[in-house]
């Protein structure tokens, strides 16, 4: 999902909180400007096509990503904007918490529980395969661990959670993050094609995207590109997957500590709580309130629309933070291991989702 690759400055060098918040404004405005431009282009396309003019049939989600990608890959985004661009993570999580208004809590439990079973299988297989691939291609062991954690659970967030826990070095972490982000960008464009080719339903496609795409942002976008319901299902499956982050990172921390290459984890329950993505609690709270009839139908619609507004800058952020040149600058072996691992994960999760939906277990 999201990320913190720059070391936190020491307290002595930290500017005042008000100054830090002010520094967020330019980049935040840029995110909203790109998102709104994407929405405007979608509306322009609808208008022009209605008046018999040609305009590509592209939704605002993809416009926002394309504009962000063009801006960050063709030009150098000034440093002034960078702090604010990082707020895409806030908008993403806000959108996820608010979109829970569209879920009945019983469905969250039902689909979430089904996703948890699929996630458990996916985790076991993908961690094993990534570890084997890392050994075959002779990647540094800790880089292999980071790639395995990133590709099996929650992308960049999982890698950042694992870095201090397994005492990985900065270069391995940067390489793993770059590989996971670049591969996430590829998923945006390939998954919808596969979904349409296989005539997948909105629900099954969304669950697949949530299980297979690494970062929450990319998983949300990959789902939303297929449709509104697919986007929501991707969020639900991805959220279930993210819930595993603490357990997997703890497992690797214990392993590397047993090898004498990382500090021992003394308080495991506290470690699990610290690594748990807390926004999931907000998602569940809104879903419970909605299911208890706390909101009217019109109010639920407003909350759903508000989540779309929150996703708008988040989608722009996905484009802005994706550096396509990372595909070539990080060396071919981590990328190859990532690509092979991701293809395996995509196929295995596709097989599981198709099996579940083919047999009607998910209706």
């Amino acid at each position, binding site marked *: 999902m999201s990320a913190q690759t720059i070391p936190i400055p020491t307290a002595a060098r930290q500017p005042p909180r008000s100054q830090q918040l002010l520094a967020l404004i330019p980049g935040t405005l840029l995110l909203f400007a790109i998102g709104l431009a994407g929405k405007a282009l979608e509306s322009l396309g609808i208008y022009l096509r209605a008046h018999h003019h040609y305009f590509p049939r592209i939704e605002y989600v993809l416009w926002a990503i394309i504009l962000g990608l063009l801006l960050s890959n063709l030009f150098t985004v000034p440093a002034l904007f960078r*702090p604010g661009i990082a707020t895409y993570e806030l908008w993403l999580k*806000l959108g996820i918490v608010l979109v829970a*208004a569209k879920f009945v809590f019983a469905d969250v439990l039902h689909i979430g529980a089904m996703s948890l079973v699929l996630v458990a299988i996916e985790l076991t297989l993908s961690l094993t395969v990534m570890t084997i691939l890392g050994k075959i291609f002779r990647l540094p062991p800790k880089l292999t661990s980071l790639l395995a954690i990133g590709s099996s659970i929650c992308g960049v967030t999982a890698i950042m959670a694992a870095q201090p826990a397994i005492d990985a070095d900065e270069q391995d972490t940067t390489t793993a993050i770059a590989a996971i982000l670049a591969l996430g960008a590829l998923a945006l464009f390939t998954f919808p094609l596969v979904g349409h080719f296989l005539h997948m339903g909105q629900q099954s496609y969304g669950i697949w995207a949530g299980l297979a795409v690494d970062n929450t942002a990319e998983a949300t976008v990959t789902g939303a590109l297929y449709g509104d319901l697919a986007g929501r299902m991707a969020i639900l499956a991805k959220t279930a997957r993210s819930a595993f982050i603490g357990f997997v990172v703890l497992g690797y921390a214990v392993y590397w500590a047993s090898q004498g290459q990382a500090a021992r984890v003394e308080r495991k329950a506290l470690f699990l709580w610290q690594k748990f993505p807390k926004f999931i609690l907000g998602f569940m709270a809104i879903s419970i309130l909605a299911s208890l009839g706390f*909101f009217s139908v019109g*109010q639920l619609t407003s*909350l759903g629309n508000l989540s779309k*507004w929150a996703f708008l800058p988040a989608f722009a952020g996905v484009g802005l933070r994706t550096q396509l040149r990372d595909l070539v600058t990080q060396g071919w072996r981590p990328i190859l291991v990532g690509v092979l691992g991701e293809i395996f994960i995509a196929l295995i999760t596709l097989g599981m989702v198709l099996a579940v939906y083919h047999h009607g277990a998910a209706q």
Partner: protein
Amino acid sequence: MESPTPTRKLAFNVDAAAILIALTFAALIRLNIIHHINW
């Protein structure tokens, strides 16, 4: 050297902020202080 990945840590807890903002909007909408949000 700055990371090639344009990601950085924010100065506040993102999860807590997202939940707080979401619950605030939910309350404002529930109390009809915000009547309708269009898309």
